[in-house]
Every structure is written in C-alpha cells, then in structure tokens.
C-alpha cells in the first residue's frame, strides 16, 4: 500500500461545487496513480463532467482540496492546471480545423527562435510524440480538416502530452469513434499507461471500463459512492452503485397485446449512403428500441425516416401508404415527430421562451393551425411536467431534463402518430429520466408508435417492447423485450448471440 501511495499523482478530497445554488458535486474524492487507468463512472448528471472541469481548472471548486504530487494546489485557469501536468481531452475536440497538426499541438506554447515561430522544431516535436505513441501515420504539417475522427483524437492526445502531462483525463473518448477505431484507442491507452501516465477514463460503456481500467470510482448524484479495483467488481455491482436501486423498478410496464395496434411505419429494404436493406415494422402502441454502437447507422436510420438524409432505395410506408419523405417538413406533415440526439443544437432555440419552443413545430410546419389550439399549451406543459418560472422563461435557463421535456412538448403539440426519439435521456438527471420514460410509455398507450434509440443499454432494454440491433449500417437482428445486455452487445459488435467477448 505504501508503495502505491508514492505513485499518487493527483488526489482530490471533499470537492464540492454548486451552480446557481444547485449542488453538482458534494464532497467527491478521487485519487490517480501513475501508470493506472482509473475509470470514473456514474449516470449522466452524476457530476463526472464537472469533476473533470474542476481537475482541468475550468471550474474552481467551492470547497475541497486538490493535491498534485502531495502538494496542495489551486487552479485558477486551465493554463495553471496544464502547467501542473494535467491535461483533459474533452468530448468535443478542441482543435482548429484550418491549422496544421503541429500548430494545434503547440497552440499557445509555440517554440520561438530569433523572434519567429520555429516551425521545424514544432513539426519535429510533434513527430517525435507521434512516434513515441506509435502513431506514425499522421503528417504534422497536414491540416486538421483532412484527418479522420480517430486521427483527430490522436492529435488531441498528442497535444495533451506535449504539455508534459502526467495525468490525462479522457471524457467519453469513444463517443465519436467507429468500431475499429475503438480498438486502436484501447491500444493507445495501454501504451500511455505503460509509459507511466495516469489516465482518468470517463465512459458509459461497461465493456470499455472492464477491459481497460485498473480501478473504478463511482459517482452518484454528485456524491462519491465507492472506489475499488476493477477486478473486485462485477458489472451488476457497478450498475447498482451507479443507479442505487434495482433496475427493474425503474421502467414503466411494457405494452400488452391489447395495446398493440396497426402497423404504422414500415420500412422495406430501405437504404442510403449510411444504411442498407433496412426492413422492419413499427406498430401503434409499441416502443421499438434500436441498439447499436455509435456510428453503426442507428441514428442514420432515424434521420432517414425524418428526411434529413432521405432513403434512396427501398420503400417507406406510413399506415400502409408508400411515401417519399425528402425533408423534415414532409415528415412533420405526415405525422412523424423526431426528438434529435443533440438537444441544444438541433432541438431548441435556446433564447426563445418555453412557449415559443413548445409551439415551434406547430408554427413552423403547420401554418394556419397555430391559433387553433392555443389554450391547451398550459395543459400540454403540465402533462410533460416542465418545472419553470412560467411559460415565458427562456429555455436556456432550464435544466437539461426540463429542456428535454420542452422538446417532447414541441412534438406532442402536433400530435404525432410516429415518434422517433434519439437518445431521449442524454445528460438529464434521474428524476427527469423517469418522467421521460413514463411519458414515452403513456404516448405509446395512446396509440403512438415510438422508435427509440439509446446508447444506454439498461434504458433501451428496460423500455423497449422489441429491440432491433444495428451493426455496420444494417440490421443485425431483432431481440424480444427484456433481452440481456450481452445479447444486444453481441449483435451490435458483430459477434452474434452467445459469442460475447
């Protein structure tokens, strides 16, 4: 124990942080040792991102202690955290698209010789770091815009390393990666670990965490739950730590046979650039889940139904009538609703009021009917349980959960017959999550056909009446309600049922 004690690079104790009076972190402890991969787990809204930002010097904690190599430090700016050897790789890439790899890696710390930036040294240093990582396929002089997503991530890591980082925190590093690229990242993380760097790995994906990490710290609702070696934890235990209750109680009852109605939406051999040969039926009253890894094409199916990137082959039938949907407007007018994955950039007009957002679809796509149902707005917002100061409050001041409820209200206001929801509970707290789940199920009971995409397998399995699993742009199989996570992952990774790694 004392030996590992010496390896401790960073120790956070009793970190608390509130935003606008809402506590986000309440007394969190975290300890990182050199050469370990330390997983940070917790549901969305558990406080992982905030903790990372505290570590990165973006947020200053309200109380608590940060030690680096045994000495207490206070980070006022990201730069100070950087100088202490802490580097963060954020979910969104922090790269300048039109600058070269070397320029990005050295941004803010360009080497200067005789008054001018020493470009050659910049490129050499970058190449050295790339070589050190075993990534020789990236040209330091190439602009970032020419790189693949995985290569950009490598550049992010190199950028972090070039500050002589001893601690590397990675926030959902696989979120944007395709399958094969994830394997590459595993390799990379392993190499970094062997070179004595402490890695804080934030991820939702059980498999990654168990494959990579040596220890796991679990947060729940902003509080520290436990920290234990990965080998001493099972995935069941981990889930229980994260959720704090048994999974079954979380989800509303599934559809019964009486609930199911006519086929609402049917795809036959539909495909476009991203997906191919998609065939399935969606009945009124049921919730069908779509599972698949990021980049597998699950969102592409939703966006094709929605007309953003339309299907180019096959047919789409709505209530038995073949339709061609080439833009979102056509989809809305046919009674299809779509809750997008990215709430802030695609779902809401943040500076507008709750009222304006809730009426957005009705006004934008169905002009003339705007005044018709004016009085029911209050009832509608009540039904989705939005908590706000009033319907004129701007939505950017709402919590993520309430924002998502406004998005749902926006669609309910036009009474869709088919509702496609992409990551409906991403980044919202547990209470709001349950409310969204209940709402979706209530909608299904009222005869709406719901197609649901989610990366959170427990949620997908808990909610769905059937699960379609997408792998590399095609449907790899269909599973019944209550399928095991292993079965879903097996299909999603292309191993087939029973051959789970």
């Amino acid at each position: 124990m004392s030996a590992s004690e010496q390896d401790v690079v960073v120790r956070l104790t009793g970190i608390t942080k509130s935003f606008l009076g809402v506590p986000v972190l309440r007394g969190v402890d975290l300890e990182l040792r050199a050469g370990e991969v330390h997983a940070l787990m917790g549901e969305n809204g558990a406080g992982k991102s905030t903790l990372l930002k505290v570590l990165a010097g973006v947020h200053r904690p309200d109380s608590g202690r940060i030690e680096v190599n045994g000495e207490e430090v206070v980070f006022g700016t990201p730069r100070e955290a950087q100088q202490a050897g802490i580097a963060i790789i954020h979910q969104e890439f922090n790269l300048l698209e039109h600058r070269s790899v070397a320029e990005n890696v050295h941004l803010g710390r360009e080497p200067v010789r005789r008054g001018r930036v020493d470009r050659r040294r910049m490129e050499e240093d970058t190449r050295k770091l790339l070589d050190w990582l075993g990534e020789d396929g990236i040209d330091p002089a190439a602009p970032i815009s020419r790189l693949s997503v995985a290569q950009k991530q490598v550049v992010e890591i190199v950028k972090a390393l070039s500050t002589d980082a001893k601690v590397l925190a990675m926030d959902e590093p696989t979120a944007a990666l395709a399958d094969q690229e994830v394997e590459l990242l595993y390799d990379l993380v392993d190499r970094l670990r062997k070179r004595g760097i402490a890695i804080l790995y934030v991820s939702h994906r059980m498999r990654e965490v168990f494959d990579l990490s040596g220890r796991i710290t679990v947060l729940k609702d902003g509080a520290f739950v436990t920290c234990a070696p990965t080998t001493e934890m099972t995935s069941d235990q981990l889930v229980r730590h994260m959720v704090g209750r048994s999974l079954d109680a979380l989800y509303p009852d599934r559809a019964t046979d009486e609930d199911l109605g006519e086929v609402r939406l049917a795809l036959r051999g539909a495909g476009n650039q991203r997906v191919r040969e998609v065939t399935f039926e969606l009945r009124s009253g049921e919730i069908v889940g779509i599972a698949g890894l990021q980049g597998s094409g699950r969102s592409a199916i939703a966006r094709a139904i929605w007309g953003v990137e339309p299907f180019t082959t096959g047919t789409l039938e709505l209530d038995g009538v073949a339709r061609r949907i080439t833009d979102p407007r056509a989809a809305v007018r046919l009674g299809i609703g779509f809750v997008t994955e990215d709430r802030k950039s695609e779902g809401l007009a943040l500076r507008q009021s709750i009222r304006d957002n809730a009426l957005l679809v009705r006004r934008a796509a169905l002009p003339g009917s705007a005044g018709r149902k004016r009085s029911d707005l209050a009832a509608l917002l009540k039904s989705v349980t939005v908590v706000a100061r009033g319907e004129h409050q701007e939505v950017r001041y709402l919590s993520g959960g309430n924002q998502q409820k406004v998005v749902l209200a926006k669609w309910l206001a036009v009474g869709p017959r088919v509702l496609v929801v992409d990551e409906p509970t991403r980044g919202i707290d547990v209470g709001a999550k349950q409310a969204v789940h209940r709402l979706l199920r209530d909608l299904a009971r009222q005869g709406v056909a719901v197609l649901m995409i989610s990366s959170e397998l427990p949620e997908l399995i808990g909610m769905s009446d059937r699960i379609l699993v997408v792998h590399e742009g095609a449907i790899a199989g269909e599973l019944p309600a209550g399928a095991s996570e292993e079965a879903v992952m097996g299909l999603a990774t292309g191993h087939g049922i029973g051959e789970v790694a």
Partner: protein
Amino acid sequence: MSVVQQKSEVARGAGRGGARRFSLTPTPTVTVYLALAVLLVVGSVLVGIQGGVLLDQGGILNILTRSTVLGLVAVGQTIVIINGSLDLSVAYLVGLCSLVAAETMAGSDGMMVPGVLLALGVAAVVGLVNGLVVTVLKVNAFIATLGVALILRGYLEENYTGPAGSVPRAFQHLGFDRVGPVPIGVLLMLAIAGAAWWYLRRTRGGYHMYAVGGDIDVARLSGVRTGRTIVTAHVLCAVAAGLAGVFLAGRLGSGAPYVGTDAGYDLESIAAVVLGGTALAGGRGGVVGTIGGVLILSTLDTIFDDLAVDPFFKDVVRGVVLIVAVALYARRQLSRRSG
C-alpha cells in the same frame, strides 16, 4: 490499426507530394491571383481593341498607385478579420490621421517625424479603444467600431470643414517620388504587407490571431490570451489605417477630413479582404490574398478608365464581383465538406 493507417497513408501521400496546397482545389489565394491574371489578359485585349495599351509601364504604375492607400488599409483590416473581428472606423481614422500629421507638421521640415509619430500614436489609441470596447465591454465588433467611427465623425464634423494643415515639400515627396520606376508609396504598402505577412505567418502573436479567429474557446482553453490578441489586432489595424492617412497627407499636401470616407475605405477594405479569400468569420486567409483582392479592384478601375467607361459602372461591377467571388468560395467549401 488498419483503418487509421490506410486513411493516414492517403493524407500523407497528399502531404508529401509537395503539391499539398494545390492538390484538389486551389486555395482562395491562388484563385485570386489566377483571377487577376485573367483580368489582366482580358483587360489588355479590351483596351488593345480600343487602340490603347493596358500593361505598359504607365499602366502598371497606375494600377499599383491606385492600390497603395486601399492596400494599406486592407492589410490592417485583414489582421482584424482573421481575428474574427472587423473595423468600420478605418475610413474616418484615415482622415483624422491625415489631419493630425498635416497640422503637426504645419509646413515645417523639422516637424515631419513628430507629425508622423503623433498621427500613428493617435491611430494606435483609437485601435486600443476599439479593442478594449470589444474585449472588455464585450460589445460586438461591428457595433463597437461603428460607434467609434461615429465618434470620430462627430469630432471631424465639429472641428473641420475642409482641408487643414500643410505638410512640408520634403514630405510631399513621399507621395510622388519614385525609387527607380516604383513609387515610394507602393514600396511602403508592400513593405507593410510584407511585415504583416511575416507577423501573421511567422510569429507567435500571428499564430494566436488565427487561433482566436478560428475558435476563440479552443484558443482560450489552450492558454492563448485571447483578449490581448484581439486588442493587438485592432491596434495594428488602426496603425495601418493611420499610415494610410499620413501617406495621403503627403500626397495631398494637407490633411483632409473626409479623404477616407469619400473613398469608402471602411467597406471597400472589407470587400478587398473578403475578395482576397479571407473568411469573414475569421481564422483563415492572409495578407497575400488581400493584396490580390486590392490589385483586382484597382485593375478593374484602371481598365474602366482606359475604356472610358462611366465611373458609376465601376461600382456596379465591384458589387457583382464581390458577391460572385464570395459565392464561389462558399461553394467550394461546401463541395469540399461533402466530398
């Protein structure tokens, strides 16, 4: 390993060929100079048909001389636009600095250096105000510099009705003398453009300007002092405009309050910068393109003069050229993104 390897082989193949910059689609800078070349050829033919010559020594000098003042202002404007900002106060600043220089000199040889320095100092202060309003008061650059422009205008209208001050004869040489065949003004403009190029492309400060314009949050998270960078850009831009004013004082023999606005240097310089391929949103482009843009505008002017076209027709053509050029840049970016 395979996918990344393959993709990166492609990237590297493109990178090592030496033709990386010109591989698929030419950069805006190349496009600008190609357009300039085409314009010169077409212009020569048209002027030739009418029995004139476009590109004799006089013609070339004419184009370069016309480019001098706009070039100075546009080089400064390039710097702020690369920062994702812009400066609408340059036109009044040009007039103000011409007055400051001419009135300080007041015809005496000994006051030449103080006059120039004072004019540039005034310009730097105005730039500093612009920069601080943008960064400290967090006012959108459009409004901030428009506001400062209006303040300068008020000052000029209050205190001047026409030309004032006078520069000594020695200083007037700056406006008209030549080194060999090349006017001093042109050399001055090219020197400033060269210095700006060197600053943007070779120094740390210049690198940070591209970073701030590209994505201010990325720059901040990487430890770039974004506020200082923006303020510096505004000061440099203002000093370039001040230099244009000083040069004009030399050429006109006195300070003229509306010499900058009559020529529309505020919007015209932005037009030249954008025509030169610098993105109005910031983070991309450069001085070389801007000079190309300025040359295109002045070549157009010269051709129309030679053809004795109605001067108002020039404005029409300028407007169309500007829109078409930016539409082409936008188009190419789209095709690159989807391709």
